[in-house]
């Protein structure tokens, strides 16, 4: 075992763990429990908000899969990754103040609270809760598998032990501390991600003998590596541009991102988060993917793209620094699953149980139920991740694109178009998810674009058409 690498990693896990326990002392009981547990009492400042958005959004793919693809395809993949720069400001600008104000007026704690108040429809709530639970559960399980594999590959322990270490630490801090623990650990994890990016990029440039030298060697190997089109010329402008929808503006539709727009303390916090978030997203995406491309000069011939980052870190850095860098993807995975875990349990407790099963549930009972359901969801993900069933992997394929296609219009049009109504929202969710799955299976990359593009167009029209089928919704001044 390589203790140089393991010690910083273990230190990181313990730190995150302790922060979670510490923040659990802030959880209030009484009427504010739900707001506190699921939204940290709407008290997030700018820095923490920016970091939690970046960390939640930046998943294993930003640190493992993405740099691996950049290693294979060259600078064209870095160009693609930079489409994510907009998520830093676009999501906050669009959801912006209006979402925060409305959420306070209607006392919303979850995205579905907002949809319920806006559309006043049982079907909107049920369909949204179903989409969130099914898709996010699958996405979460896939990330846990990634987390387990990461620990396995650095430490040499067996996969199931690694998964146990990983899920144990995540579960404890999420269950004990709720959203506050999630966002504070996210902030730490975000900082680790930034530091990891700086170190690995610097280490790679030094090991490769400077940028100029690296680019010259890349060009000598295959000139396409330094074009926008990819080493095998597979990256067409249209395909790369369509990622502006999937990983750029479409992110507005992801529930784990939009729920954060309910939690800021004031407009100042939101303003700061936009600036910090844009910088941090851009920096991490540029740095990590560039390191992936440059790694090709230092370690040629890596067959498995997912191993590029770990191997590169171990190659160009001393052991203890590699440990810090390798904590970054672990941080990315943890900060994604913790938010999703809380979101799935909030969908079950708040959106289904309190809305439809027992609206007048006793506060103490809700509190115990929240801890309980979060634990049960977490343990079932753990069970699934030990030996992932095919169905889960299949559903995970649809998770992010499907959620974007489902929610982007009900959220955005619900905020900015008065005539939108429940029929529109239902049509949009059904058409969005349905057409995404159908296209994915039958016509992947239709007309050379990423599959997510057309379903977002279809669900837009479904929303408009649906909204015109029935009379106006009841007039209120809330929205």
């Amino acid at each position: 075992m390589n203790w140089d690498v393991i010690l910083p990693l273990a230190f990181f896990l313990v730190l995150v763990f302790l922060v979670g326990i510490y923040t659990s002392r802030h959880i209030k009981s009484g009427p504010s429990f739900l707001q506190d547990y699921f939204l940290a009492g709407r008290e997030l400042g700018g820095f923490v908000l920016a970091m939690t958005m970046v960390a939640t959004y930046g998943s294993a793919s930003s640190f493992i899969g993405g740099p691996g693809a950049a290693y294979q395809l060259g600078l064209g993949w870095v160009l693609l990754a930079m489409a994510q720069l907009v998520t830093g400001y676009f999501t906050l600008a669009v959801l912006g103040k209006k979402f925060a104000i409305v959420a306070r007026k209607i006392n919303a704690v979850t995205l579905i609270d907002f949809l319920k108040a806006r559309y006043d429809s049982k079907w909107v709530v049920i369909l949204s809760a179903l989409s969130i639970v099914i898709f996010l559960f699958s996405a979460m399980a896939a990330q846990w598998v990634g987390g387990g594999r990461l620990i396995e590959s650095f430490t040499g322990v067996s996969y199931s032990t690694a998964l146990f270490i990983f899920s144990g630490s995540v579960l404890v801090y999420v269950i004990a501390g709720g959203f506050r623990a999630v966002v504070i650990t996210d902030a730490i994890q975000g900082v680790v991600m930034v530091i990891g990016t700086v170190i690995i990029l610097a280490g790679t440039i030094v090991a490769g003998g400077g940028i100029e030298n690296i680019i010259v060697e890349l060009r000598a190997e295959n000139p396409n590596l330094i074009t926008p089109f990819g080493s095998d010329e597979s990256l067409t402008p249209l395909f790369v541009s369509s990622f502006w929808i999937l990983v750029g503006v479409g992110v507005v539709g992801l529930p784990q991102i939009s729920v954060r727009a309910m939690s800021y303390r004031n407009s100042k916090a939101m303003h700061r988060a936009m600036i910090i978030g844009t910088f941090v997203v851009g920096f991490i995406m540029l740095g990590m993917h560039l390191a992936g491309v440059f790694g090709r000069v230092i370690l040629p011939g890596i067959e498995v793209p997912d191993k590029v980052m770990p191997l590169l870190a171990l190659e160009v850095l001393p052991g203890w620094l590699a440990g810090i860098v390798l904590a970054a993807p672990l941080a990315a995975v943890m900060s994604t699953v913790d938010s999703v875990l809380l979101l799935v349990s909030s969908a079950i407790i708040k959106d289904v149980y309190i809305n439809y099963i027992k609206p007048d549930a006793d506060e103490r009972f809700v509190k115990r139920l929240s801890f309980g359901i979060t634990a049960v969801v977490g343990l079932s993900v753990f069970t699934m991740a030990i030996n992932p069933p095919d169905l889960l992997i299949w559903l995970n394929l649809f998770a992010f694109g499907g959620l974007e296609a489902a929610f982007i219009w009900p959220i955005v049009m619900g905020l900015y178009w008065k005539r939108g109504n429940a029929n529109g929202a239902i049509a949009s969710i059904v058409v969005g998810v349905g057409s995404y799955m159908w296209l994915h299976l039958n016509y992947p990359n239709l007309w050379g674009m990423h599959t997510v593009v057309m379903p977002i167009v279809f669900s837009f029209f479904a929303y408009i058409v649906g909204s015109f089928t029935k009379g106006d919704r009841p007039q209120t001044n809330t929205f």
Partner: protein
Amino acid sequence: MKKGNDWRYRISNKEAIMGTVLAILNFVWWYAFAYGLGGRPVKEYTYILGFPAWFFYSCIVGFIFFTILVFIMVKFFFKEVPFDSDDNDGEGDSR
């Protein structure tokens, strides 16, 4: 009580439009430099700080430039509004 909305929504609508416009400009900048300069044959590439010029302008300058634009947009054009103050003119709905 006016039929109209909460005054804060006008500000928020305006800011949502500004964010969208900035995203469109960002896309145009990114696309024009990447495929404008990068679409030429590799032999004709020029290099800045070791990077091919298309990459330097599209990804590196684009990143810095748009971060600065976001800063300017937020500092000078976004307005701070209270989130909580339930306007005392009594709202139409009572939930």
